[in-house]
């Protein structure tokens, strides 16, 4: 079976306008929803809720989150509360699978943050494995991990795939391979796709993420070379499309390819047109893939 192609759903109006024709033309096979996006004080729009319920009923709804921070060394009330919200979420909607991000974001006084890598030690592996087991016990659906774009140095890049595999063993989990995150590491650390992919458990890949990003221009390090960042606010680079085609050949277990774009970033008609073009091109790549 060909993988489904779908969208990471955003509740913002610009995203609705950009994505509406894709739904209307029946081109969205599957939805991914960042579950904690619906846990804020402002309720999600009715159209968002209706889409989530519809795709959930069709067993075509994938859960995702960056907020769990399962690799934080300190287990806090915040993580416990997050798990309780997850239990409610999984009772109210039928998710097919749930994935979280590799990395940590909470420590000390920080309750929210960017995700940062951690080195593999016996302690971080134990902490992470336990965090994933708790997730699995609550969600009662398959659990996965997504690779992280950011790395402090070559060790993070070299070790991430193996560390993710060791963590997934605890829950017999799946890998969400984010191709733009891989591209960030390829560019920022001068690696080839083959070098990076050889470290990942490709047999565990069930989902692929595709997106665009942006550039940072740090002053330090004695070079004017920019840093690629996974900001989900720009067009998909040509290299990521090429990577999509190659990775699909290497990952026979892929069930869904998800296109990601943040809400509130589709600010004009050119960006909306590009969003639709990128989605159509991705769908074409998946559809034309030989099995």
């Amino acid at each position: 079976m060909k993988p489904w192609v779908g969208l990471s759903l955003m509740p913002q109006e610009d995203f609705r306008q950009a994505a509406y024709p894709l739904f209307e033309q029946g081109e969205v096979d599957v939805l991914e929803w960042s579950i904690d996006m619906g846990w804020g004080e402002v309720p999600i729009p009715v159209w968002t809720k209706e889409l989530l319920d519809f795709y959930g009923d069709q067993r075509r709804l994938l859960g995702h989150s960056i907020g769990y921070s399962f690799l934080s060394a300190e287990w806090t009330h915040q993580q416990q509360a997050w798990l309780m919200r997850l239990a409610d979420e999984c009772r109210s909607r039928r998710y097919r699978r749930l994935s979280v991000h590799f990395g940590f974001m909470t420590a000390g006084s920080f309750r929210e943050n960017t995700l940062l890598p951690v080195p593999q030690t016996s302690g971080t592996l134990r902490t992470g494995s336990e965090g994933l087991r708790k997730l699995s016990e609550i969600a009662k659906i398959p659990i996965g991990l997504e690779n992280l774009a950011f790395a402090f140095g070559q060790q993070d890049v070299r070790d991430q795939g193996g560390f993710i595999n060791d963590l997934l063993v605890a829950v017999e989990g799946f890998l969400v391979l984010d191709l733009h995150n891989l591209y960030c590491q390829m560019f920022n650390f001068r690696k080839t796709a083959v070098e990076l992919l050889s470290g990942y458990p490709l047999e565990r890949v069930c989902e692929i993420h595709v997106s665009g990003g942006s550039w940072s221009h740090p002053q330090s390090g004695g070079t004017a070379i920019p840093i690629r960042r996974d900001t989900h606010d720009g067009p998909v680079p040509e290299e990521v499309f090429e990577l999509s085609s190659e990775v699909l050949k290497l990952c026979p277990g892929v069930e869904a390819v998800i296109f990601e774009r943040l809400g509130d970033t589709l600010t004009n008609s050119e960006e909306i047109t590009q969003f639709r073009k990128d989605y159509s091109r991705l769908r074409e790549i998946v559809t034309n893939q030989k099995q």
Partner: protein
Amino acid sequence: MTAKNVDETSAYFQKRLLDLLNQIDDPEKILFLLRTDPSLGPYRAYIETFESRMVEVAVELVRKWGR
């Protein structure tokens, strides 16, 4: 080193890293403070692999998203 010590070092490393990224602008100074912190001995080899340009980006990210 016992498992408990490993976990305590990991917790300290994560807290110290986020605090420094949030409080100090200069990536070289952040790296110096991490490398010379006596409580981070088990993490020293890892910290040595950090690139200052990436620490600078991490400063930008933590200032944007940290709360």
